[in-house]
């Protein structure tokens, strides 16, 4: 690995680490900002790759990540938290327990999937080793686990956005899909977050409902 490849590898690993950070905190505001940090890292990666490969698409992708994921999604989600509840936390949450389960779940699933499926993939020269694909996979499963393990609407939205972030990362490393499609996806995700933020205002936590069992 040369130095540029090492930097790309390092930033990709930080994206995955930010997923563990989001999983490990119970403050909702910190969760939202954790997602913003993750998106910034992805934007930085997109810019680096864009300059390396002289790809305008990747640079525009980075700009879209900053505007839509870092600024707008952050804005819409923070707006739904009342000022008095800035320090709102998810109650009855055992963070150490969740982190341990998360770690086991992620390590097992990612190792298996990478070993049997993605290890034989050939990536572009600027990225080099295919084991960098482990990071989008970790981020994707982190998002899934966050949705499954939390009851707060906010945190579940963050889990969904994290999954979408993993998809961008996956796309950047494998083969960036056409920009028009990427842009449509970004707008779709933003619209979904806006719709979700309407539900947040009505229902901030989710527990089993008797009428919906079975």
């Amino acid at each position, binding site marked *: 690995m040369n130095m540029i490849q090492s930097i790309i590898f390092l930033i990709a690993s930080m994206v995955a680490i930010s997923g563990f950070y989001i999983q490990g905190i119970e403050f909702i505001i910190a969760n939202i900002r954790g997602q913003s940090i993750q998106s910034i890292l992805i934007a930085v990666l997109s810019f680096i790759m864009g300059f390396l490969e002289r790809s305008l698409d990747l640079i525009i992708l980075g700009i879209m990540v900053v505007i839509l994921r870092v600024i707008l999604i952050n804005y819409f989600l923070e707006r739904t938290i009342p000022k008095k509840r800035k320090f709102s936390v998810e109650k009855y949450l055992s963070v150490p327990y969740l982190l341990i389960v998360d770690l086991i779940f992620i390590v097992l699933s990612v190792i298996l999937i990478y070993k049997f499926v993605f290890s034989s993939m050939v990536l572009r020269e600027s990225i080099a080793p295919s084991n960098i694909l482990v990071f989008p996979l970790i981020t994707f499963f982190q998002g899934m686990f966050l949705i499954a393990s939390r009851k707060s609407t906010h945190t579940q939205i963050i889990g*969904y956005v994290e999954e*979408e972030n993993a998809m961008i990362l996956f796309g950047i490393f494998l083969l960036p899909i056409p920009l028009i499609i990427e842009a449509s996806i970004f707008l779709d995700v933003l619209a979904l977050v806006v719709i979700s933020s309407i539900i947040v205002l009505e229902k901030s936590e989710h527990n089993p409902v008797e*009428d919906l069992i079975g």
Partner: protein
Amino acid sequence: MIFNNTALPILILLVPAVASITFKWGNIKLATAISGIIEIFLSLLLYIDKPAQGVFFIDNISVLFIFMVTSIYFISSLYSIKYFSQHDIYISDDLYYLLLNLFTISMLFTLEINNFGLMWVGIESTTISSALLIITERNETSLEAAWRYIIIVSAGVTFAFISIILIYYVTGTLTMSTLINSSFKSKFLVLAVAISLMGFGTKSGVFPVHTWLPDAHSEAPSPVSAMFSGVLLPVALYVIYRIYEVYPLKTVYVWIATLSIVMAAIFLIYQDKYKRMFAYSTMENMNIALIGFALGGPGIVGALILLLSHSFSKAGAFYSSGNILRLTKSKK
């Protein structure tokens, strides 16, 4: 050829959009109903005057799906007028019809477009436009059902995006007409087709990712449940079928669909609410159609006949359930 290549498919997308913007000036209920009639007419015209493949991909199968969507859209828009005159509605009439129109546009877009990436966008858009329709009667249960719908379907459809990336990685294109007529061979393509079954299957009622389905169907107002059951699930099934055509995985699809049918039948036994029963019945029908598509040949014809009859009959069943609910005030 009456229209040029893209005019008719674009017109089909534009008519509900025009009906939507009338909420500023006129009667959106009437405009939506009229738009429904025009849409049925245009979908029939599409059968006679199919455009050449380009931005849009229209063949006999997609025409049939478009006809189903436009017909149920028209009937639901009419039934909504009666339904909401007898039931409380939390959102404004204008917003309801606006969302109904957007929901229809997103389904039609998915059926017409000749690109797997944009089909994914269309499927995701159906979630955005239909989520708020579930909570039109605003109660704790419908909010929870809407949330489960949003989060489960979105997470599932995001998973399906892996299949889109993999298809693009292997073939270098997402154009549907190119891909279904090609003979690419790769283990990543096998993976893509399998992932799409589970990803898009979230929306079309494939076990075990169907869990939002009975909740949303039972808590949405009856005209919306009719749209969900009659056309939304078949539209997702259409996407699954198109990706299946890229690299047929007959055994996997048939087994998963069979398992889904068996599980739906088991779940059905434990239901005491009629709309939840209809929802599980929809799940069974979708998976029977999936088996038909996977088998190919006469199986496809059978699947199409089943989907056409199911869309009208199940929509009718959900309209009836709205009447029963009004008379008995009970969902059991």
